[in-house]
């Protein structure tokens, strides 16, 4: 049977991709951010996951407003990155795991989560930046399975729905009839707002509270509405719903092995969590 070895939640700001491409990790602006990652890299090196389930949000690379799935699950042998328009150089494709994808899709739909399946799916910076942070140089790069959640066009799925879907993802992986070591990634957030007169809004206290609750009391976060999250975390800070999906997949109590938080990276409060099942 497949098993979830743990989870990593991280911000996915495009500027991080640009900084990695230009090797700016030691630069004064970037150091407090990148210094958060070596313990996670070491953990991944030790745990050697074979598949990374990447829960993220597309920002207008694969999906447009003509068809906007609330939840989309990749079912491809390979996921390509492409030009997003503002200068980040596309990176090499990522291998998929179609067998696990279809098992996940079947299990989720049987559990009444009617997801969109994608046999072609371009992955944007929400996917590629975290992969670059967690597997620098692509050493022991695992296969991948993207799950994209709509954070572009309201109505967005409620935090509670996201958590429940995460639980169903965890259940699906546990029932996959093959030895497989799976790590769950959640990417996005934390607080930021790019649009409107309120652009530049960052909420440190709310971010730190969210990180605490993700670890110890995720149900507390499921009681927020999307509107609450926009108000407290900014219009793009709602991406924290990906962290709730990840936490749902871990199901029981967890141990936090490592964390980091730094303001600002670009316009964002940047967070990092490494979690393991406590049981």
């Amino acid at each position, binding site marked *: 049977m497949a098993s979830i070895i743990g989870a990593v939640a991280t911000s996915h700001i495009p500027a991080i991709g640009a900084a990695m491409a230009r090797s700016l990790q030691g630069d004064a602006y970037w150091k407090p951010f990148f210094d958060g990652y070596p313990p996670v890299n070491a953990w991944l090196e030790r745990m050697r996951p074979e598949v990374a389930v990447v829960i993220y949000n597309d920002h207008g690379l694969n999906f447009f407003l003509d068809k906007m799935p609330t939840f989309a699950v990749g079912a491809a042998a390979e996921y390509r990155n492409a030009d997003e328009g503002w200068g980040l150089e596309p990176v090499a494709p990522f291998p998929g795991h179609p067998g696990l994808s279809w098992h996940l899709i079947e299990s989720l739909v049987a559990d009444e989560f009617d997801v969109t399946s994608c046999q072609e799916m371009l992955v944007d910076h929400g996917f590629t930046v975290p992969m670059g942070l967690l597997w620098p140089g692509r050493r022991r790069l695992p296969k991948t399975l993207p799950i994209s959640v709509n954070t572009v066009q309201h109505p967005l799925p409620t935090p509670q729905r996201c958590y429940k879907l995460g639980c169903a993802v965890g259940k699906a992986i546990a029932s996959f009839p093959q030895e497989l070591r799976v790590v769950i990634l959640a990417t996005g957030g934390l607080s930021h707002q790019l649009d409107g007169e309120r652009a530049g809004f960052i909420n440190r206290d709310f971010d730190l509270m969210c990180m605490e609750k993700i670890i110890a009391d995720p149900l507390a976060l499921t009681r927020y509405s999307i*509107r609450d999250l926009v108000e407290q975390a900014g219009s793009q800070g709602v991406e924290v719903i990906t962290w709730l999906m990840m936490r749902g997949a871990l199901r029981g109590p967890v141990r936090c092995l490592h964390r980091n938080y730094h303001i600002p990276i670009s316009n964002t*409060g940047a967070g990092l969590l490494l979690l393991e099942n406590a049981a």
Partner: protein
Amino acid sequence: MVSEPEIWGTTLFDGRQAMKGYALNKMCYSFNHAENRAAFLKDEAAYCARFGLTEPQRRAVARRNVLEMIAAGGNIYYLAKFAGIFGLNVQDVGAQQTGMSVEDFKAKLVAARG
């Protein structure tokens, strides 16, 4: 529609905005491709016409004004691709929307450390 109090300085991109902004966002989505960015720069009026932009959308685009583009239904993720044509990043866009210098906007972000 559920009516909730507005959040200051924030436009929720909902169905109403998505319908209003469709042409503008579709044009900006096309800027994922370098040849489309070049075509826009070569003949802006013709490129806007091809996507059927409304008059307020065309005006906002001509003025490079992000708040006006949002008022005309623009979504920031697509507008970021438009801004990218001019080499503008999210700090530049944030500064423009808040009426601050880019330097002051960056200082405001750092101040969020508390």
